[in-house]
């Protein structure tokens, strides 16, 4: 916030003894910093320095102010300045920071990789363009503390410090992205990196800002869809990659006239199935070196407009996002046992035998989302209120999973959300404000894979966030209380024909009871209403104990209301290859394998987290070291019951099938997993060290690690392995070259049902050449990924054994800025 260029022109009417503050921003070697920004937060004033680093803040009341000065490539500077009646002239000297520092936008507190008490990473600018991928998790995969749950190149979500799913919130411009990606690993995130300006990652509990669903962290994709100024500028990109024949085109442009700002962005991407260094399925080593059904086609268009005022802006943007992607490994019932011949018969209506369906075996998803966002921010010259920011959104999401050319399951999410932040003027030197947050989500699934009943979740929250500098110490405090209701009027408890494989010793008899179970079985129906009041607190401090260094501590207690899937599920979830049953249910034990309502009360999940950070913020060497310890009470997770249940697609077609071709195997069965809760502990570290060797050459090393286990020492599944990476960069005005080598260690701390995953090393390179042509900055680039063509199986992926990372790929692209 407060970066609005228009605020330069802001006048302060009641200022009778106004003075001007002028000065210059320079580097330690005395070089003027042309792109430096100087801001006085208390006054909502911000100004950009000219070509020679000079700036002028006109008409400031005399007094003492805290200034925040930042420039790309340099450490942020906070300095107190006393403005007297006559003009004051100051020089700010910024030190170089080899670690890129980008502020988190629209946060009520100071947040950046170098400044905040809790850890933050921001991927922006050139780095974002270099790392952007078709899916969000893969785009963020190289940030410390973030790994991807790679799902065959078509879907992926970020895993932050070992947590994902309903614990990591994905936002677009601060509002929930509102898709169904939190529910299944094969559901794509409805957000695009190629049109974003930056992607922010808050590691560790961020419920303070985002509420339930952010207990493990937040990923916020930021773009300029509602323009805050109307300078004409834009960006376009064309790229092609060899491994999957991907073609990408994207653009974004901002312009305007008078008080109106206009914005548009769009992208189009198409890719085929991708190649792998080895046969993708570990059980079929002679298979083709290609992951079938991993192609995608997506496009999106966003149009926004805003009305720009002297003290702020208000605007609206509409986005249409479409994506059609194959779901590799989405066969019905256990990938490994998949049996082509029985498949046709198990599946569909009675006439299917007549037609060849081999081409339509593949399952693909057709996703569509319409997103409307209304964003505004106003500053006031008021004794109490400093600024108001307003965000409201409505999204209408639908994705259909198409099997055999017919719609199998339709997932829908309709969400409305409002956030209102009221920032007060400094009060006893405390800065901060109140945040109101309301969200209403209706989620429904219809069809064969509708494992969760339709539900409506409503959340209303109030949060207070404050920060203050005490000399060299910045203190940040926050608290948030929420009221969450989860309504599901038709939760089903069907009789589960589950059985253990041990009992039948492979004699295949059990199939019979399926066809003549005559006992009248009842599906119990429940109307469930849950009310939760999660409360979160956080306290942190950052102490600049010696120039160029700081140490941060952050302690938080965060609560989360469990999601509908974790409580109410009952059915086969092909994306995870399990039969999922929510925590509302439990094995009763009276009858064999019978399920009833759980007698354990549903409770909130509570995370107690402590974060320690040591940073070197400036100089030729910079580093950020984080260690965290997160104790999660009542952690919701799935346990394997040891039972198996039919995935079911064969169940519905009752009529005149010749059951003579009894090719039934276990192929249509899934292991039954039951949600429950237990206390868990996650701890680990992230380290990032950068060395600016010379003006053109920089070397960076990073590493991250997490250990995730239940208190009784059972390891949690799909925990990212230890990782160490290095990046060497060479940058001149025209040439930019990067070499990345990342080693993923072997993961042998596995959940009981998991297998070990071997380590691997990935080598990526990137070279670009920049030049200027017809008022445009052009950049042509060549990038190579997985240059050694290494077999890389991702431990965090549900498709580990059937879809490794893509093999060697060479991409070429052209980018322009104006």
């Amino acid at each position, binding site marked *: 916030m407060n970066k609005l260029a228009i605020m330069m022109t802001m006048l302060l009417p009641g200022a009778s003894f106004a003075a001007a503050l002028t000065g210059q921003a320079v580097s330690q070697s005395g070089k003027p910093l042309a792109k430096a920004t100087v801001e006085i937060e208390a006054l909502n004033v911000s100004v950009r320095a000219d070509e020679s680093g000079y700036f002028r803040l006109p008409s400031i009341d005399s007094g003492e102010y805290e200034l925040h000065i930042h420039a790309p490539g340099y450490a942020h500077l906070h300095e107190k300045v006393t403005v007297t009646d006559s003009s004051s002239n100051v020089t700010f000297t910024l030190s170089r920071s080899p670690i890129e520092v980008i502020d988190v936008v629209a946060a009520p507190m100071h947040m950046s990789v170098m400044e905040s008490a809790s850890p933050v990473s921001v991927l922006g600018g050139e780095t974002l363009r270099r790392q952007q991928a078709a899916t969000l998790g893969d785009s963020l995969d190289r940030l410390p503390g973030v790994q991807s749950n790679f799902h065959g190149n078509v879907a992926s979500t970020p895993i932050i410090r070992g947590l994902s799913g309903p614990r990591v919130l994905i936002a677009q411009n601060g509002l929930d992205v509102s898709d169904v990606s939190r529910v299944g690993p094969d559901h794509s995130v409805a957000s695009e990196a190629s049109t974003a300006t930056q992607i922010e990652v808050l590691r560790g509990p961020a419920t303070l800002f985002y509420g339930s669903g952010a207990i493990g962290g937040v990923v916020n994709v930021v773009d300029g869809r509602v323009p805050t100024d109307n300078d004409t500028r834009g960006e376009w990109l064309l790229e092609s990659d060899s491994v999957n024949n991907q073609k990408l085109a994207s653009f974004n442009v901002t312009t305007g006239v008078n008080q109106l700002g206009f914005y548009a962005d769009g992208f189009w991407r198409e890719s085929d199935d991708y190649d792998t260094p080895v046969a993708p399925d570990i059980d079929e080593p002679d298979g083709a070196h290609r992951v079938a059904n991993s192609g995608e086609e997506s496009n999106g268009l966003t149009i926004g407009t805003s009305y720009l005022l002297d003290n702020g802006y208000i605007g609206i943007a509409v986005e249409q996002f479409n994506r059609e992607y194959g779901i590799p490994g989405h066969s019905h019932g256990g990938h490994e046992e998949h049996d082509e011949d029985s498949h046709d018969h198990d599946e569909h209506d009675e*006439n299917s035998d007549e037609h060849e369906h081999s081409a339509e075996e593949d399952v693909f998803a057709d996703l569509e989302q319409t997103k409307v966002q209304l964003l505004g921010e106003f500053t006031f010259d008021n004794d109490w209120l400093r600024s108001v920011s307003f965000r409201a959104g409505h999204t209408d999401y639908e994705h259909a999973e198409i099997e055999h050319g017919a719609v199998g399951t339709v997932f829908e999410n309709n969400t409305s959300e409002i956030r209102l932040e009221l920032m007060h003027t400094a009060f006893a030197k405390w800065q901060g404000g109140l945040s109101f947050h309301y969200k209403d989500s209706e989620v429904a699934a219809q069809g064969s894979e509708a494992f969760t009943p339709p539900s409506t979740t409503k959340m209303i929250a109030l949060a207070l966030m404050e920060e203050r500098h005490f000399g060299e110490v910045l203190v940040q405090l926050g608290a948030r209380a929420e009221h969450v209701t989860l309504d599901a009027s038709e939760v*089903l408890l069907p009789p589960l024909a589950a059985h253990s494989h041990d009992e039948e010793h492979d004699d295949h008899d059990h199939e019979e009871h399926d066809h003549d179970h005559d006992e009248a079985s009842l599906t119990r129906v*429940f*109307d469930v209403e849950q009310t939760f*009041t999660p409360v979160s607190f956080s*306290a942190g401090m950052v102490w600049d104990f010696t120039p160029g260094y700081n140490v941060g501590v952050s302690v938080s207690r965060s609560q989360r209301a469990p999601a509908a899937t974790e409580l109410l599920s009952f059915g086969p979830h092909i994306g995870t290859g399990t039969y999922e049953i929510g925590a509302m249910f439990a094995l009763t034990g009276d009858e064999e394998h019978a399920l009833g*309502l759980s007698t354990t009360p549903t409770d909130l999940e509570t995370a107690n987290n402590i974060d320690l950070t040591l940073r070197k913020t400036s100089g030729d060497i910079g580093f950020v070291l984080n260690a965290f310890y997160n104790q999660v009470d009542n952690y919701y997770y799935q346990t394997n019951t040891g039972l198996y249940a039919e995935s079911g697609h064969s169940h519905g077609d009752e009529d005149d099938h010749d059951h003579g071709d009894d090719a039934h195997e276990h192929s249509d069965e899934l292991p039954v997993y039951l949600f429950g809760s237990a206390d868990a502990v996650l701890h680990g570290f992230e380290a990032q060290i950068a060395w600016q060797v010379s003006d053109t050459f920089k070397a960076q090393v990073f590493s991250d690690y997490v250990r995730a286990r239940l208190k009784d020492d059972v390891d949690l599944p799909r925990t990212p392995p230890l990782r160490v990476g290095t990046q060497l960069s060479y940058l001149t005005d025209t040439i930019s070259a990067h070499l990345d080598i990342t080693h993923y260690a072997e993961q042998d701390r596995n959940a009981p049902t998991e297998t070990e995953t071997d380590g691997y090393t990935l080598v990526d390179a990137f070279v670009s050449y920049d030049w200027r042509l017809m008022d445009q900055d052009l950049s042509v680039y060549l990038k190579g990924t997985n240059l050694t063509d290494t077999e890389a199986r991702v431990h965090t992926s549900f498709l580990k054994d059937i879809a490794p990372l893509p093999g060697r790929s060479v991409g070429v692209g052209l980018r322009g800025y104006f």
Partner: protein
Amino acid sequence: MNSIKNLSLLAVAISSVLLTGCGDAETTINELPPIEDHDDHDHDDDHDGEDHDHDAESSGRLMIADADSNAMAVFDLEDNSLLDTFSVTHSGSALTHSADYRFAVVSSRTNDLVEFIDGGVWREDHVDHMHDYEEAPALSDFSLVGSQPTHVVSHDGQLAVFFDGNADTSMPASVQVVSDNDIATEANDIPTLTYSVNMHGVAKPVDDMLIATVRRDDAESVSANPVLPDSVGIYHWHDGEYEQEQLFAGECPDLHGAALNEEFVVLGCSDGVLVLHAHDEEYESQKVSNIDELNGMRVGSVYAHHDVDTFIGVASQHGGGSAVITAIDPDHGEMEVINWEPETDAHPVSYGFSYDGEYFLILDDKGHLTVLSAEAHDDHEHWELTSRIHFSEEDLNSMPDNAGFSMSVAQNAPLVYITDPIAQHVLIIDLEHGETEGDIELDFVPSAITWLGIAEAH
């Protein structure tokens, strides 16, 4: 490890000092009446007709059109009560059911519009069980738009609406195919076949295939009336379009009427009926010529049932004069006249098979329901008169204008529902016992009726 323990202690210590506030969680669970799970593999019930078990599932609903307005009334067959009344856009629309009997399909030929009303009773495959829904009926926002929707036919989970197009406005004919799920989810991309000319045609969906009539160039056409197609195309839906895979060119002059069962497709032509039979993904054609007993008429409507080998063909004079009803045996390539022993001057107004294929029903304009059933001789089926129910004693001269008897067959029991516009009621007729089981009083003149609900699997 020590340091981690210390960290843990520190975290807990600081947390507990700072944070005494605590979240709260409350759960309210109300158990609702359970859903009976259907045993999908049990086929041997109720074909003996004795003990129809209506407890386990909904009896279904009736949608009845008002002859004098655009109102549609929905009755619950559990207790024969009026559930709701809906206004569709146009009055005088045709009424039928969707492929799985969840929706009433209201098509207005003159207004180029097909609307849907959710009857509220349907079944979903919930993998572990078949889940039956019984909800309030509702007018769907989903509609189909096209020039002159005329023949609306269902087969095996799909509904095909044939839009005749209009020569006057140069609108070509087209076919749109929707499943109940498409209607429920208000699907956007409806499989559509668009022709280049108008025609009075018909199409039958079979999985991802569509058997549809084709009107050839008038110069080539062998139809006496060129608006009637003379050819049949086999189309395959892939990559977002229907692609013609086979064409039976000129094999069916003046094509009108079509039906299909598991094995055969039968289409009415001026010179006989065209029989199509699938072999190794290819259809083969065969013609059954008109027989002398047709007296120069031709089969213009064809009826079929999933479980019945015989097709019933109806040859009648234009305007509903006397009709000759024939049994068509496509397997042997034979056609024979069924002696249905009509009452004097009785002209059929509606036909249909009972839900299990046991009976073929003929409703006539003199207040009779004629019930035919088949007897097997060798491997031939012979259809004969079984019973006749005289359901209306009203003075037929008081039949309101533009109204007539109409019927709809229940798909879960041997019942048929007949509207009587004179008495303003619906009669419920039990086919097993050949008698009227009850009636539903109406406060309007009914013009059309359709049964909705969960069809019993065959």
